[in-house]
């Protein structure tokens, strides 16, 4: 073996590795205008919208799988794959008929048996689905286009359950796929929606590609969010994952991408200055910031301690720490519900209004018996939202004279530690920070965080009998007035028991190149009606 042999061998090996099996299809110049390049909010790490309920999976799945119903921008469920429905007078038997001509991406027709299998899988994971299963007598296919859901008691929110946009969404898949255990991931992505998933081009963490499904039959109605005619005006949509916001901003300015779902507030001024870029609020339903207190251990097992924190809490401090001086991006929220939606109420939210009274809060805290024990406060530093909130909370607790055990960690660790019910000093916790999509806080159905049924409740395990009573009242409500009344009482009860602490309502921007048109505001990025010129 001599030097030349070694060098030749190395060069050959490098060349082979660089060229082998790594190719992606090149896009011809003319096709570029038919390809929309989109930077999503997060990495599409898996593609099963029932198994994994992250928003990014839901957003991608909305392209590939259609739904029986879809909520429109008024939050009203409208028919989508369904042509008609009938419900008996007792409200216990629902009969649905599918539209004709519906096809899956493999060319096979969408049949009732596919729907039944899809609903069974969805119902095993979705809170509303679980409620339906609990009162289900039978869910059966009557014929190829008709299926029937027979219940033991009325369920007035049936159409909302089937059309809601909250994860997990009741997407319709072929029976063979939908028969997968809901706690195991699917491996076949044949869909029923307007775009096909290009499985061969999927590089998790980097890229996902969707191609127009020529045989999709859109509805004739005008499109509105998940309802109406989902007309796809491009041939191909590429989701390009960019972990670094500065890179995404530069790529948008340079025309290397067309649409960036959620630019961070710090970079928005730069984007606004660029004459080729449009910037606007992306999701009008925004987000509700929060921190949750652990009901199982002192000091927050005493409602007076929880109220003391709320009395001293300044939502403005939290919001300014997060979004800076942009007044359009936040508003105070003396409520647990999303502002601007039909059920929004401020009943009971007085505790968050007006001048903050630290002295009164201190007094109440002392009455609760707090005597300086450490308060374990979990703060994920890798999430800008929780990082900002955590810093403000630490300051707030110190003002109240509390002994803060500030646990700076990452989101993954917070995710597992918050599930621990052990005492704070033994791996448990007293409080952690998070936020909720406004779309999940429009009513009690998808709103896991508002539930206060103790052991079965979300992390922090709040107990509030009155809150739970009003959740049930909302589900039983027959009309909007009854719903409003129930939610008003619910809001009051939740504040009385301090189910959690809302830190304010905040919005975020979306940004796109001006050669792209048709982008609409909504709780997820809607690609129907979006077109692009060269």
């Amino acid at each position: 073996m001599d030097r030349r042999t070694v060098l030749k061998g190395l060069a050959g090996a490098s060349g082979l590795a660089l060229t082998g099996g790594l190719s992606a299809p090149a896009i011809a110049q003319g096709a570029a205008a038919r390809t929309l390049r989109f930077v999503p909010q997060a990495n599409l790490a898996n593609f099963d919208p029932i198994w994994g309920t992250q928003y990014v999976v839901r957003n991608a799945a909305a392209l590939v799988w259609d739904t029986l119903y879809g909520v429109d921008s008024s939050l009203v469920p409208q028919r989508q794959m369904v042509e008609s429905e009938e419900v008996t007078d007792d409200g216990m038997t629902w009969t649905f008929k599918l539209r004709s001509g519906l096809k899956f991406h493999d060319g096979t027709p969408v049949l009732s048996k596919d729907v039944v299998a899809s609903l069974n899988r969805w119902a095993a994971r979705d809170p509303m689905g679980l409620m339906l299963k609990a009162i289900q007598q039978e869910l059966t296919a009557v014929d190829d286009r008709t299926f029937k859901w027979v219940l033991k008691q009325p369920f007035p929110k049936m159409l909302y359950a089937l059309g809601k946009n909250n994860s997990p969404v009741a997407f319709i898949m072929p029976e063979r796929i939908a028969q997968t255990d809901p706690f195991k991931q699917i491996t076949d992505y044949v869909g029923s929606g307007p775009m096909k998933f290009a499985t061969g081009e999927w590089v998790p963490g980097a890229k996902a590609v969707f191609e127009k499904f020529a045989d999709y039959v859109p509805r004739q109605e005008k499109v509105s969010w998940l309802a109406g005619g989902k007309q796809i005006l491009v041939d191909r949509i590429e989701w390009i994952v960019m972990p670094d916001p500065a890179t995404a901003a530069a790529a948008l300015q340079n025309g290397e991408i067309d649409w960036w779902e959620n630019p961070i507030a710090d970079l928005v001024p730069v984007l606004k200055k660029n004459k080729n870029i449009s910037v606007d609020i992306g999701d009008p339903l925004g987000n509700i910031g929060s921190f949750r207190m652990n009901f199982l251990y002192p000091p927050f097992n005493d409602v007076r301690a929880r109220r003391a924190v709320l009395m001293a809490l300044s939502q403005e401090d939290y919001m300014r720490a997060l979004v800076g001086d942009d007044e359009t991006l936040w508003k105070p929220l003396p409520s647990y519900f999303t502002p601007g939606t039909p059920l929004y109420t401020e009943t009971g939210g007085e505790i968050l209004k007006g001048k903050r009274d630290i002295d009164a809060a201190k007094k109440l805290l002392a009455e609760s018996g707090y005597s300086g024990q450490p308060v374990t406060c979990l703060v994920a530093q890798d999430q800008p939202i929780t990082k900002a909130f955590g810093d403000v909370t630490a300051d707030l607790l110190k003002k109240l004279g509390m002994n803060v055990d500030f646990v700076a960690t990452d989101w993954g660790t917070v995710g597992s530690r918050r599930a621990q019910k052990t005492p704070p000093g033994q791996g448990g916790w007293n409080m952690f920070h998070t936020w909720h999509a406004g779309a999940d806080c429009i009513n009690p159905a998808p709103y896991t965080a508002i539930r206060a049924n103790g052991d079965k409740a979300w992390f922090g395990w709040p107990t509030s009998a009155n809150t739970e009573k009003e959740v049930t009242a909302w589900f039983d409500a027959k009309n909007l007035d009854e719903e409003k009344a129930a939610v008003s009482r619910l809001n009051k009860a939740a504040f009385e028991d301090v189910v959690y602490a809302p830190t304010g309502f905040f919005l975020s921007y979306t940004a796109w190149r001006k050669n792209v048109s048709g982008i609409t505001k909504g709780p997820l990025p809607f690609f129907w009606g979006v077109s692009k010129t060269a």
Partner: protein
Amino acid sequence: MLSYILRRVVATLPVMAIVALFVFSLLYIAPGDPAVVIAGDQASPEDVERIRQSLGLDRPFLIQFGSWVWRILHGDLGTSIFTNLPVSTMIGQRLGPTLSLMVITLLLTIVVAVPLGVVAAWKAGSLIDRAIMGFAVFGFSLPVFVVGYVLAYVFALELEWLPVQGYTPLTDGFWPWLQNLILPAIALGCVYIALVARITRAAMLEVLQQDYIRTAKAKGMGQSGILFIHALKNAAVPIVTVIGLGIALLIGGAVVTESVFAIPGLGRLTIDAILRRDYPVIQGIVLLFSFVYVLVNLMIDVIYTLVDPRIRY
């Protein structure tokens, strides 16, 4: 030589076994739970537990480790918890961009750093030497992401010469492939160039003091011949060593560089896997990196014999 290489390859096995045990144990005791990430923010504790069971994460340490080792021995790195894709497929998808970045960075380093080091040694103590060494200190001190942002701003946004981000496979053409790698390679190469230039200078300074260099000068040999034929060849051993060991520096730097320039390589895969606690992927990548590092060390030893005939195994 061949028997030496074989012995060294066999000796990598216990090293890999220790790395495997170490990585698996570390991940097992690390906080975090992939089932929580999969289930999403709204999932109930029962849902999380069901997912944990379906992934086999509720099994005892020894059983999990045993089944992982058994799969490794059968050439199976396992399946990603999140994507459900084989880890080998995921690594294969990401190998090209990272390898491309490393090859270009390596070439850039050799082409720039070695001549710089040689010139600095030749002009030791002069303004040129100080300028080069000043550049080396500067390059070594600047974080990769700062260099990356500055380069992207100047050459992509302002001058519009090169793209900001992305990767194009070599099969799509040499220039499309190269233009995506130029800025990342410069950003990643800065530290490496600085390091190699300094070592080259130091090694050359020592060699240039030797008697045979004086003899070559006395015989009337040209300056370039003395520097690049006689001196550089004899100074090559420490330079090759640093270039080889610097591969580890490149692997670490690639993590940041790939994020800044949105290159879908192994560095980003590593970060994503760690943040999501995708254990099989982390284990697969660490094993791969360890293997590469061991292999690079072996290559350095082999290259020694090519640059210095006195070294024999």
